[in-house]
């Protein structure tokens, strides 16, 4: 039987280990404390019917039937440019149905951006006052939402999509959604 006093001496060490555990968790690579879980997961996406960049509009109802990606972007958003090559690859090589919503932007600026960096979107809807973004719970651009064939939000990616996120999370999810 170890005396009680000896055990008490171990308490600071245990407390330190718990604390260090939290530090390790918070410092793990790829963790961003500003990244928030979406409150909209598994809920129906808020309906929208937007004017389009090329004259054709973008409405939620027209997207139902297949799993799709909706990417909120803007010409004034620098991380969106960083994301553009990943989106181009998604559209050209993976043939993922990718739709854009131009968030709080001028259509001419968005057109310039797409002309310069490439246009990965099947269609782009204009959300000049950010109302659709507000309904989706967007709190910064870029954000990418995965919708299943019934129009329910299944996942949200905050910030620029990385190749790693695409390979490890996005593509497997899309494959699963296509089968379901």
């Amino acid at each position, binding site marked *: 039987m170890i005396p009680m006093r000896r055990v008490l001496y171990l308490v600071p060490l245990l407390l330190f280990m718990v604390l260090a555990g939290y530090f390790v968790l918070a410092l793990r690579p790829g963790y961003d404390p*500003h990244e*928030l*879980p*979406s*409150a*909209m997961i598994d*809920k129906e996406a808020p309906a929208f019917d937007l004017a389009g960049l090329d004259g054709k509009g973008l409405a939620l109802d027209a997207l139902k039937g297949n799993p799709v990606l909706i990417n909120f972007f*803007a010409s*004034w*958003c*620098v*991380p969106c440019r960083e994301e553009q090559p990943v989106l181009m690859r998604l559209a050209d090589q993976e043939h993922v149905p990718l739709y854009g919503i131009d968030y*709080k*932007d001028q259509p001419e600026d968005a057109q310039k951006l797409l002309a310069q960096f490439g246009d990965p979107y099947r269609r782009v809807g204009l959300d*000049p*006052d*950010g*109302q659709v*973004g*507000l*309904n*989706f*719970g967007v*709190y*910064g*651009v870029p954000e990418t939402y995965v919708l299943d064939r019934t129009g329910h939000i299944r996942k949200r990616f905050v910030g620029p999509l990385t190749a790693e996120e695409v390979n490890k999370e996005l593509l497997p999810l899309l494959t699963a959604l296509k089968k379901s």
Partner: protein
Amino acid sequence: MRKVTAGRLGVQRSGNAAPSPLGCGAGCVQPPARGVRPPPGPFAEGVSFTTGTTAASYPSAAFPRALTHLRVAVTTLFALFLLSLAVHAFAVEPGERLADPKLEARAESIGQTLRCLVCQNESIEESNAGLAHDIRVLLRQLLLKGDSDAQARAAIVARYGEFVLLKPPVQPATYVLWFAPAGMLLIGFAGILLWLRHRPSAADAGPAPLTPQEESRLDTLLREADH
């Protein structure tokens, strides 16, 4: 009060740029994606306020030193207080305000409990981020529509999650958050009580009384010392 007004104007720099209450019109500077912070309050004014009343106005010979120090301390505190008022001034833009003062007061009191998700430690009423503006307008639209305070708050929580509430609700998932501080305090008190109880008292702690042999030896030693 003039100082506070100056601070407000500073905070709502973007006020003139957004003509419509709904988002950004032509020529509006778009918000950067993340991390917008309001500029600090009128720091320079606060500082000049402190020095103006202490050193310049009263020659140190006329006042005892301690009193001067007290004055400096009090004026500094007061200046800091004014500064804090300026920093916490609302960022609500004139165009966003509701015509009905009662409804606007309700909107402001709800808005102060809602987090701006861009700055994360400011309420939407304090933040001048674009998103805070959008949520302020949405909140006011909901109230105009006739929503109760709880309904309006719930509509915003539905979009952004409970993280949007600056004060987390008391529910099983947050019990640790709410009750851990009081619990830790109780554990601490219990620990102190236990320690006090089991600590050997001063009477017990003294040296044991001498045995007869020791007594006689002490006597011998003392007698030897006398000689």
